[in-house]
């Protein structure tokens, strides 16, 4: 073990929701991340925990003057400036930071990118899902489309990840050539980039319009979510061996020998059309006799891909996460501690750093430098 992967990398953080997770990733990898605080962040309810989680391991500076002034001063010794939002992105580019710091990498994340006719349009996570084409296929057929897990802001998790990927590539290039660059990330682009399973490229190829299907898919059965005694389980048993194992289990548990019907055997196509409803009924007969975690572990023992449909409470209680020592403790700005997810990946030589959010906003660069010198709690 030899320290942090990004030790010495200096990041100026002007992110908004669309790339806030990037700051957490940089800090976890050991970069020095300084958030320029402009005083307008809301800190109540979920937002308080959002801010604390995303700013873990970072430092904060601000007050007394505009964020542009702080940004210019910090950029003089920085490697990366990360910016979120349409107005801030344009304002940062007007600062022409790379003229005085040629090696700087400036990454902007905006709803639609910095080029094109909609470059000035505003958006958020929901608008990203909508205009990227994936809200259309998410939700129930008889209801409006929905964003996947909207309070998690998954589209923004993606745009933040792409920001870090682009930035680390550019940093590598800058270290080799001495030249930085601008990176332009559009949240809409990021959503389109994950639409390979259901998006325009498939539609072009087969002209089948993918729509909302609720929590079961017609590709085969069982494929989707099924009720248990305490919730739901998800089963994806499309392959021949998966169905054979399911059929044997159904017979063993419920006595329903209809599951052994030879016409249901074989690949996923064997359990579509009129067979789809039948197989789903057989499957429900089985799943309703189990608790979801119990079903999950038994299905896996039998070689069937399945999982419980977990709530937040059941994720928090998951035995695997406990056994792998996944959880970390994080200090909130007022001093109390909460349990949060630990490393998203484990690196053998450069372990993840679980830091705390800054307890206060440094009013000067001198105070900021002192805060970097303080050991993490």
């Amino acid at each position: 073990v030899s320290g942090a992967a990004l030790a010495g990398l200096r990041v100026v953080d002007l992110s908004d929701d669309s790339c806030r997770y990037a700051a957490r990733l940089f800090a976890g990898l050991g970069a020095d991340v300084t958030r320029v605080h402009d005083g307008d962040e809301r800190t109540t309810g979920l937002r308080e925990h959002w801010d604390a989680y995303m700013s873990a391991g970072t430092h904060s500076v601000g007050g007394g003057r505009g964020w542009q002034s702080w940004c210019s001063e910090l950029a003089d010794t920085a490697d990366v400036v990360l910016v979120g939002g349409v107005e801030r992105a344009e304002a940062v580019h007007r600062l022409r930071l790379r003229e005085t710091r040629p090696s700087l990498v400036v990454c902007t994340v905006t709803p639609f990118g910095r080029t094109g006719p909609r470059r000035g349009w505003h958006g958020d996570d929901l608008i990203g899902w909508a205009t990227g084409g994936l809200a259309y296929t998410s939700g129930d057929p008889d209801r409006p489309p929905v964003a996947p897990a909207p309070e998690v802001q998954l589209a923004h998790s993606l745009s933040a990840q792409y920001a870090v990927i682009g930035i680390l590539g550019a940093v590598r290039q800058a270290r080799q050539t001495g030249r930085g660059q601008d990176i332009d990330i559009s949240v809409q682009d990021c959503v389109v980039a994950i639409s390979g399973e259901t998006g325009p490229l498939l539609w072009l190829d087969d002209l089948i319009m993918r729509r909302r299907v609720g929590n079961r898919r017609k590709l085969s059965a069982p494929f989707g979510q099924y009720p248990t005694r305490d919730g739901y389980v998800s089963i994806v048993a499309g392959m021949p061996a998966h169905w054979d194992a399911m059929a044997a289990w159904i017979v063993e548990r419920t006595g329903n020998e209809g599951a052994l019907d030879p016409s249901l055997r074989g690949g996923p196509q064997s359990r579509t059309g009129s067979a789809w409803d039948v197989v789903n009924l057989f499957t429900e007969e089985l799943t309703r006799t189990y608790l979801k975690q119990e079903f999950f572990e038994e299905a896996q023992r039998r070689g069937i891909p399945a999982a419980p449909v977990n709530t937040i409470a059941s994720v928090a209680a998951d035995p695997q996460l406990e056994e792998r020592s996944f959880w970390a403790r994080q200090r909130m700005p007022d001093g109390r501690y909460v349990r949060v997810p630990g490393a998203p990946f484990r690196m053998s030589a450069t372990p993840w750093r679980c830091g705390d959010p800054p307890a206060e906003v440094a009013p000067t660069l001198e105070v900021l430098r002192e805060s970097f010198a303080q050991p993490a709690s």
Partner: protein
Amino acid sequence: MGQQQGVRPLSGIRVLELTSGIAGPAAGRHLSAMGAEVIRLDSLKRPDALRLTGSGWARDQHPGVRLDTGPMFSEFMAGKRSLAVDAKTPRGRDIVLQLVEHCDVFIMNMSAAVPAGLGLDAGSLLERRPDLICCLMPGFGMSPSRYHDYRAWGPNLGPLAGLDNLTGWPDRAQSGLGTASCPDYTSAGHAAVAILAALLHRDATGEGQVIDLSQFESTVALLGPLLALYDDTGVERERCGNGATFGCPRGVFPTVGDDQWIAIACSTDDEWAALCEVAHGEPFAADRTLANETGRHAAGDALTSGIASWTSRWLALELAELLQRSGVPAGEVHDQAGVLTDPQLRARRTIRPVPSTRFGRDLITAFPPRMSGAATDLQCTGPMLGEDNDDILGNLLGLDEDDRMQLADDGVIDSPVHPEVRLRRPYVDWVRYVIPDPDWAGVDV
């Protein structure tokens, strides 16, 4: 933003990928887009899941040819090369290990037991190449644990990590994540981040390392704020439609046309006021009790119905443009055809043609980071199975033609199936009118 051709962040980096499904291939794709040479290990006997999808219209083709036709394969394997070798045979395993000596990064997303079963565990790989960055990304991590040998598929990881239960409407069972397996993509993103960080560390120190990425943990990491809230207060967030936590109104509303919708997301009172100006004359626009977010939340379904009644008289595109001009975040809810014709995506060439051995040219989506100082264009679509056997085995490993023929005769490598066969996608005649792109001029069909 103009891109400088020729300069690439990962020039000189070679990646070996033994992957299937989406999470592993998508990770390799990110590295390919930034200039790494990515070699994927294929197998005719055990094709990966994306090759098996094929294209519906190609059912009459030879099964081996059909393995090269799936749009998902073209998309997620873009920019890569293919070596078709059976890693389960002793000679095949030796070839893989020899190849590792020439590689900087190894990616595998099979179940945790597979690497050791193939003799390709991290220890064996690092023995061959001590500064290797070895990224193993099974569903549940590499260390011995309760779920160590469990099967993880993208559609099951969302439910397990709590994402599916948070998707849908509070008055019904969860809708689930739908047809996009988000954990596959976010795990791929985390893998690419970790690999790039490890490369920077190696550049500085010469040290390689092992990345143990549990796709389950990688997904749960995205729910941090909700899990922190639960731990701190006992409050458990539930599914909430399109979510009003960050503002109100925030939702999807009907517009003119069958299954056509607009998304509107007001996060401030000013944005609401701007929306009311656009909706001048509507009852909700004149209601002063709605001027602040508390009032709008209190109005609940009545406000939603009022807005829906108004939006249903508009075309989504027209209303989105009008709202955006007034500073209100809004956008059409695109179906698949809508994505293709979206003016912004067209202007940014988000969907673009690139060279393809089977198709002449084929469509893929662009790598999202647009970099001013580096070319991040993917150079081709997914390769034919075994397309690069001769070059990799011959020029990289030094095996002559006789050796390669012997390997083929022994069933250790699979040669491309009917490499002379050229195919055309059914849409080629007309898609150039939807995606105007100078590169289509080179289409050879």
